């Protein structure tokens, strides 16, 4: 069922996907056992990354440690041991800033209990915090294209997010916001904002994540 809010009591739910990053090159790495000694691993309890980047460029995901060993700029995730293996150029251990190495995973937040795309969303956004979206442009001679979305407000009374902004990089990460009616299936949800995270504001009760127009950063 497509998204068709009737304006009476649509029971809207906002789903937010933020693809946050973890910096890996500052961690202590362990060399994989022979014969895969060009691969190094760290514990990666966040699960399988959505992507791995070195110096801003994506590494290639591989389905086995052996194939990771076979070429540089590759990664492999061992779900059983929760280990992330990487094979950087040169085959050595990643060291600080050589290269800048990031793994990404998606944090899924919602204004209500909901499942989308086979993923459960954490109902931690205040129900009344769905911001308005504004997008506009001028005539061709006027320029003035803009897209704005408010901040993403997260409940934080229990301190759940206090340490997470140091543990992961939340700034300048891709954020996708969908809106739909609860319980009407995936097709009901439609994207209302696709952009970047910006500044982060924290207090004892809430965290607010600013958003930036897609044009703000180079895609």
């Amino acid at each position: 069922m497509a998204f068709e809010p009737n304006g009476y009591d649509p029971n809207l739910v906002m789903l937010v996907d933020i693809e946050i990053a973890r910096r890996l090159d500052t961690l202590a790495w362990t060399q994989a056992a022979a014969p895969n000694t060009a691969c190094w691993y760290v514990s990666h309890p966040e699960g399988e990354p959505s992507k791995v980047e070195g110096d801003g460029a994506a590494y290639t995901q591989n389905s086995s440690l052996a194939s990771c060993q076979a070429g540089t700029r590759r990664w492999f995730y061992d779900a059983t041991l929760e280990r992330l293996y990487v094979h950087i150029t040169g085959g050595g251990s990643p060291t600080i800033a050589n290269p800048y190495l990031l793994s990404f995973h998606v944090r899924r937040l919602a204004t209500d209990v909901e499942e989308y795309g086979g993923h459960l969303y954490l109902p931690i956004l205040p129900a009344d915090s769905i911001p308005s979206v504004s997008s506009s442009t001028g005539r061709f001679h006027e320029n003035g294209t803009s897209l704005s979305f408010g901040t993403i407000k997260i409940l934080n009374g229990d301190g759940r997010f206090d340490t997470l902004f140091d543990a992961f990089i939340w700034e300048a990460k891709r954020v996708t916001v969908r809106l739909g009616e609860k319980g009407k299936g995936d097709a009901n949800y439609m994207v209302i904002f696709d952009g970047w995270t910006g500044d982060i504001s924290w207090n004892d009760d809430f965290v607010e994540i600013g958003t930036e127009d897609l044009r703000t950063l180079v895609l």
Partner: protein
Amino acid sequence: MGAIKIPRYRYSLATYPNMDPAAEGQVIPERYGTLYNLVPICIDLNAGKWKLNRREIHAITAVREAGQTLISGSEYTSDLANAEFTIGVTPVLQPSTVYYFVLESDYTIDGVNYLGYGQQTDGSKYTGGTLYYINGAGTWTDQAKDLYFRIWAKASLEAKAFILVDNWVWVAGWNYKALLRASAANTRIAQSFKTPASGGPWYLSNIQVEAIAVGSPSASRTTRASVLSAYSPSEIQVGVKSYRMENYTGEANRAYFPQRGAATDLTVDIEGIETSGGALMTNVADIIQDIQANILDGDADALNAADLVALKAARTETLALNLDTEIDFESIINKLESGQLWKYIPLLDGTIGLKFAAAGEPAGTPHYRDEHFKSFKMRRKWSAIYERVKVKYAQDGGSGEFLVAEAEALSAKYLYRSMRTLEVETFLTNGADALLLAEDYLGTSASAGRRQYLCWPTVEVEFELRAGLGWELIPSMKVKLTRARAMSASGALDAVLFYVMDVQKDSGSGMVKVTAILDAMTY
């Protein structure tokens, strides 16, 4: 402070009655440090006097006219106490007047190697004058001959040159035997001529003669012409000598004279205002103090004495300020602050503080804990991240162009996707200082002390203190914060220092609101 404009003095015809009228109302510059390609103002068109600065300067290191560097002493004279220099003016010829042009050179007097000028041996063919030899003692001797010459002149400095006096009819009786420095008797040679009876006055453009080199007079010689209005009882020179004749085509056939009017193409390099000890002033603390006392005519004690000493020691880069247009004093302060990472801040003791960030906890730093806060927020400001910093330095006095030193932080690009560039315009003069500043802004410089870490999100706190607390705070002070909960690696703050940026004090509620950044990101 924003309404205060400097420099505060202007050129006026009341003060300088013979100055270039176009300069009326222009500011008289205040210049610090070593500056290049400055354009002086002519304050005496008759005397050829130009001014560079309102007050005494340390040195005039070069004067150029149309790109040619003039020689100090012989081609210009400096008056450093008044920041002025004088260069002779273009010779002006009056009608129906006898003048003498004199040719001189500096090669060794030698009977084998010398210059010979074209002459007519029949002295009756030109009736306007005669050829003289001038010996080493300055005695003039009529040779009853005449040089072949042309006097090129102009009705105005901007006009086209024409032949004013012409003795260029080469007929029988000519040779190249008007000898210059072949013997002591012709140490110099001169030719008199008479200007037309009508018209004028005329600006002398050039004198055309024709020479051959006999033997090999020194190739590095300098031959010049000058014009006299009289030679006895003493020589009276009209205007300046010509440029070096060997700079032009031929052996020494054209003597071009500087064409100097109010808009003359002069550029000057200087070393500006001096310290009280007579040294060139380049230190930021000295300059601030000098502006306060000698430009603004303010109380020298208004600047916090201890801060002046500390700033002078901590910020030692060599500066150059070319204050040649009216500008807000605050703009200059801003540029000085951002160029050397310090702040000009009013203190609560009635003085102006000159503050810079440094490691450590100053004595008396207030420590606020959970019970002291009425509200508390933290921020991570991605919008304050820069990938690249460009520092503009060594501004050219003529073109206004800067040199640029640039640093980048890959962490900003790869971790935070920032591709933003911060441009900082400074009074720095040295490329190494400018590069270090760029690196200090990003936090990538090798040594600690001034690093600002703009390659990372700025960690900022904003809090309100309970009534009665924090009234002593001002920006640039530090506060120590302890909180059971915070946005940090540990989820708390345990006696963490922050650097105060903004303080709002509400007398109605008695509360103080403070914004501060993580102290470790300020030095």
